[in-house]
């Protein structure tokens, strides 16, 4: 029986005679997290030339993109969409992270781009599949390696008008299986007014097409969450500029793009919204992004997969009178014990009367 909440004590500077130490668990969790480290898998999708690699390098302040890893390979546009992932171990103030950047060269680059989102969808589902495979093993790893795509950054070309059919198609399909964060790429070609009207148009089009990008309204946990996320939703998509070049501005070294008419400071929110993207993705919502992937997208995949499997293997003869599976498809743990309301029991009861 759960009673009302009991306050047990607190640590005060004067004395801790009534201090139990329950809140020490926060420190314990922190310690554990530091020891275990984190995994983060981010996918970048967009036509070639939109600055995907540069943005990744800017976000993570290091050469994490695929191009940086393979500098000598001739860049050619592949004939189909390819999926290429690259992992790095990064560490900051004792916190270790395994960062995986998944590139999708060839997307949107063909003349006919029909269904070019399919290999990407397949890749994402394959990651769910391999996680599920490990999860249902009898002997399974203590920590199941997580290759699931936590976040998909979709690069919208800075046309200034509206979303292209390809953009809508991609986001419509993929927003159902992964967290999509749309960004306006190379936003330094848009003035602030152009940027704002472009964003407005995009938001309306997303709404009109029923596309839910991250942070999805239906996953807001409470009022506080909603308030914060509403603000983010009002700013979506972020207009970003990427750079891995440093320049001297006002005595400081900053990341930027130097042009004849001025230097665009990447981390200056007056210039572009890179900082908001970085804060969202890394500093404030990274855990939340992972949680949604884990408890919602993955679970949705799992439910669908298990149901498919059920239909495939169930072969009850049509005239079989009895034992119905439970409504939610829960497997019965002990199939050997007969159900008390089954036909067998009825027979037994009858034979007693004789």
């Amino acid at each position, binding site marked *: 029986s759960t009673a009302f909440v009991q306050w047990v004590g607190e640590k005060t500077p004067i004395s801790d005679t009534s201090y139990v130490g329950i809140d020490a668990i926060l420190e314990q969790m922190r310690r554990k997290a530091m020891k275990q480290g984190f995994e983060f898998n981010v996918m970048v999708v967009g036509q070639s030339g939109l600055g995907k690699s540069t943005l990744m390098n800017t976000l993570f302040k290091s050469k994490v993109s695929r191009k940086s890893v393979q500098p000598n390979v001739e860049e050619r546009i592949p004939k189909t969409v390819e999926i290429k992932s690259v992992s*790095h171990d990064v560490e900051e103030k004792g916190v270790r992270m395994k960062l995986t950047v998944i590139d999708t060269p060839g997307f949107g680059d063909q003349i006919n781009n029909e269904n070019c989102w399919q290999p990407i969808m397949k890749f994402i589902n394959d990651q769910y599949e391999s996680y599920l495979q490990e999860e249902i093993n009898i002997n399974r790893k203590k920590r199941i390696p997580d290759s699931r795509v936590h976040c998909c950054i979709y690069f919208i070309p800075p046309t200034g008008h509206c979303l292209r059919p390809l953009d809508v198609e991609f986001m419509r399909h993929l927003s159902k299986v992964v967290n999509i964060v749309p960004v306006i790429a190379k936003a330094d070609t848009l003035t602030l007014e152009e940027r704002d009207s472009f964003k407005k148009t995009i938001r309306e089009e997303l709404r009109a097409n029923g596309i839910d990008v991250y942070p999805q309204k239906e996953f807001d946990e409470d009022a506080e969450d909603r308030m914060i996320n509403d603000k983010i939703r009002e700013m979506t998509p972020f207009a970003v500029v990427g750079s891995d070049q440093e320049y001297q501005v006002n005595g400081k070294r900053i990341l930027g793009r130097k042009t004849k008419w001025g230097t665009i400071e990447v981390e200056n929110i007056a210039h572009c919204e890179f900082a908001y993207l970085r804060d969202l993705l890394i500093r404030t919502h990274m855990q939340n992004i992972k949680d949604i992937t884990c408890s919602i997208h993955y679970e949705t995949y799992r439910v669908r997969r298990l149901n498919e499997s059920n239909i495939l293997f169930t072969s009850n003869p049509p005239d079989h009178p009895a034992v119905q599976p439970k409504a939610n498809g829960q497997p019965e743990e002990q199939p050997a014990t007969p159900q008390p309301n089954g036909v067998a029991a009825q027979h037994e009861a009858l034979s007693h009367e004789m």
Partner: protein
Amino acid sequence: TLMEMLTSSHTPTHICNNSVFTLGEGARAVPLSGHVGFDSMPDQLVNKSVNHGFCFNILCVGETGLGKSTLMDTLFNTKFEGEPTQHNQPGVTLKSNTYELQESNVRLKLTVVNTVGFGDQINKEDSYKSIVEFIDAQFEAYLQEELKIKRTLHSYHDTRIHACLYFIAPTGHSLKSLDLVTMKKLDSKVNIIPIIAKSDAISKSELAKFKIKITSELVSNGVQIYQFPTDDESVAEINSTMNSHLPFAVVGSTEEVKIGNKMVKARQYPWGTVQVENETHCDFVKLREMLIRVNMEDLREQTHTRHYELYRRCKLEEMGFKDTDPDSKPFSLQETYEAKRNEFMGELQKKEEEMRQMFVQRVKEKEAELKEAEKELHEKFDRLKKLHQDEKKKLEEKKKTLDDEVNTFKQKKTAAELLQNQAQQAGGSTTLKRDKERKK
């Protein structure tokens, strides 16, 4: 080519037709040229947990009267139970209570499970059984949830036991055989922390000997008790020191006594006062430190990654599931389960058929019996009827005969009377004489 070079490493490729490669499983370390900000991840994780609240479940195993309830009250600084436990049930029962505690911004859902009647029986052979069953039942409930198709693991109220405090009676000699048997049955299912209860009954020197004896008995009987983890440098030292102080000799009390100018939790005797939080008096502080302030999270983790995994593995293997190799169909669990289920259904159907046949057979037999009886009855009835008819006939004949006789008699009487009258009219007394003579 670069591609070949990168794919030649032993890292697995993803299940995808397109050209996919993964660079380095435990990839190479890459230096950062500035502050990225993912060092806030532990904070993000902690905040999420704070919002969710925490869950901790303690099982107290020990004989009646060893101060289990009092110790819980003392540890968590609160009065838990309203009424004292009833000690009149046969066998060992487990009583579980859940409380919501809060300290600063941390909400803890604490469940305390007590063994009622443990050690009270004359025959204690089965005492451990209900404890094992209870622990298994919590694992089972979690497993069921985990195997569900539509599941809600992140909001599931975890009832698995994270720590088992085993209360040893302060005899000063050695462990009781009940203790050894019980701990041996529990050590692969739960984190056991043995404690010497009511340790103010033992003197310091006896206590040291007692601890050594207990430890050596545990070791020689292969009982695995919970070891405070020493792999993390920040707590390795304190944990390994504490490991050497096991089993903790504790005293519990919620009564407060004034010592100096402070009110402290203590037990007051005529010969002195035992202060619960005085480390020279007892190990209560050590227990609290280890159980709550340092290792609560590790206890939860060990329960999940070790004890629960073992239960799950055994349970699934017991049911006939096996891990298949990656080439074969996925969903070994589902497949094997379905196969077993169909097998079972088939058997059930067969059994049903057999029973049905038997039922029909018996009905037939009974019917035949009844028919036979009916026939007999009919025959009997017929016979009786016939008998009755014969009787009736005979009686009627007799009656007829009798009637005839009566008629004849009547006729004769009438005739006689007629003659008499004639005679009287004709000759008076001579006829009388003649009649008299005739009558003689």
